[in-house]
């Protein structure tokens, strides 16, 4: 539980921390989209270099990012594995029935491996350098166009910010219940799968019960104070868009141009296939 890096905020004052969350969110989403338009090996080198630069700027050591990848690594390796054995092309090294290991398959496997890793690193960089509450504000701002269609985005972003706000409380509470049940003789992380699943019950039920209780109290408090999310309201935290925010979006443009140019040069591919 303490090992989960994705979604955690590291306080700091790097350039990345100071960029407007809206710009950061847009840029991160754009980057992830852009990854799917990279066709060749050199393009990936270009994207990797950019990602490494971002991690450097964030002021958080690379090892933290790698820790963020760790819990997902088996999932990634498995999907890469399937990509490799189901893709045929170029030189075939080994084949059996519908499965084959070919140079083209290996290359595509490498590409999707890279995409996964880069997506994780970039989204980790986003959450590491942006307060959850700022992120919700950004999501709220980006959803604003939907209001024209009559969809109430305020409720959605309130929901989001409340749930983000209570993650630390929930972690705290989990630890307490964990300790309390340990004191009553539960040894967590022992026994076979079924036994371990059974041990989760005394952990989950108190958490459910207290979360429901809190949600109800919260709803009461909101009502008592006359809160209505559908009304137009001002915001306590004001986001201000500055020059370096525009600049950081322009960097995305530069990145795109780089990808377009590098997509003309299948250098490694020509040599391999």
């Amino acid at each position, binding site marked *: 539980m303490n090992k989960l890096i994705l979604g955690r905020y590291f306080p700091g004052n790097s350039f990345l921390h100071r960029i407007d969350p809206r710009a950061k969110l847009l840029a991160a989403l754009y980057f992830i989209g852009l990854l799917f338009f990279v066709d060749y090996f050199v393009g990936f080198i270009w994207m990797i270099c950019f990602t490494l630069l971002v991690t450097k700027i964030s002021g958080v050591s690379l090892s933290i990012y790698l820790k963020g990848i760790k819990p997902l690594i088996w999932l990634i390796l498995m999907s890469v594995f399937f990509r490799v054995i189901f893709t045929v092309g170029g030189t075939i090294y080994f084949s059996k029935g519908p499965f084959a290991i070919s140079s083209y398959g290996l290359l595509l496997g490498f590409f999707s491996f890279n995409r996964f890793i880069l997506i994780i690193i970039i989204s980790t960089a986003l959450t590491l350098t942006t307060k959850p509450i700022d992120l919700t504000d950004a999501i709220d701002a980006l959803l604003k166009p939907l209001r024209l269609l009559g969809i109430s985005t305020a409720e959605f972003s309130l929901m989001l910010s409340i749930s983000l706000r209570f993650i630390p409380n929930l972690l705290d509470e989990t630890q307490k219940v964990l300790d309390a049940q340990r*004191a009553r003789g539960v040894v967590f992380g022992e026994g076979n799968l079924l036994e371990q699943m059974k041990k989760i*019950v005394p952990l989950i039920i*108190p958490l459910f019960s207290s979360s429901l209780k809190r949600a109800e109290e919260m709803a009461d408090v909101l009502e008592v104070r006359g809160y209505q999310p559908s009304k137009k309201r001002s915001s306590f935290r004001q986001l201000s868009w500055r020059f370096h925010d525009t600049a950081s979006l322009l960097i995305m443009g530069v990145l795109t141009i780089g990808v377009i140019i590098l997509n003309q040069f299948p250098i490694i591919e020509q040599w391999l296939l």
Partner: protein
Amino acid sequence: MQIKFDQVSADYQLGPIRAKNIIDDVSLQIAPATFTAVIGQTGAGKTSLLKLINGILRPTSGSIQVGEFTLDHSANKATLNQVRSRVGMVFQFPENQLFAETVEADIAFGPKNFNFSAEEVDQSVYRSLERVGLDQSLLKRSPFSLSGGQQRRVALAGVLATKPDILVLDEPGAGLDARGKQEIFALIKKLNQQDRVTVLVVTHDMNDVAIYADHVLLLDQGKVITYQETRAFFSDQDQLTEWNLELPDTLHLQRQIEQRTGINFKQTSLTRTELIDQLIEEKLL
């Protein structure tokens, strides 16, 4: 059982945040069958000290002797679990740990985990329910359908059911009304006197300390400031002022009477009866 701290230090970890030396080089010996009140400001390390005794928190250095068991940095899971079967811990707001479908199942949870036989489980469930003063008709009810005070008692019964030799409690009276709190403390005192259970209670109420505890342990920033008998502790007015501690109500009254009349009482009175006795003795009543 005796508890002995030998140069114990411990860190507190919550998520990525690590508080260093929340317990800082503590050496301490707590005699069997004593009733110790643990006091100190928020963050003094009171809860951590209790957790150390129960093996929920492992020391970074030093060792804790609980009966025949030794807890240190490398204590294995089996030892920890054995210690936990001898040490009952009641956390703050223990009603938050209730989970089972019936009160009976919830109380039986601890004994079952510590491998009590089916008969022993039944026996201890009934006994501890009686101990906490709840009716047997509640056994088949869902713990979530009970009132807050009743839930607190069920949770307490769940800990007592494991028949601990040492009982550590973190503010057992918090959030209860005056009467409920008094009942809980009276119950703990009874366990201490009749079953010779060693008790450590974290509390902020000096009245509880004066009335129930025979020893006081004052912590500050992870260090033991003092550990002494309750009467001696409250007798030294200069020290109390220096530590910025409030007086129990009876003692506060005694000091005021002493000030107004100019008579110094022979003894520090901790309970109302003691105060009345002294008033009579000094012919003020």
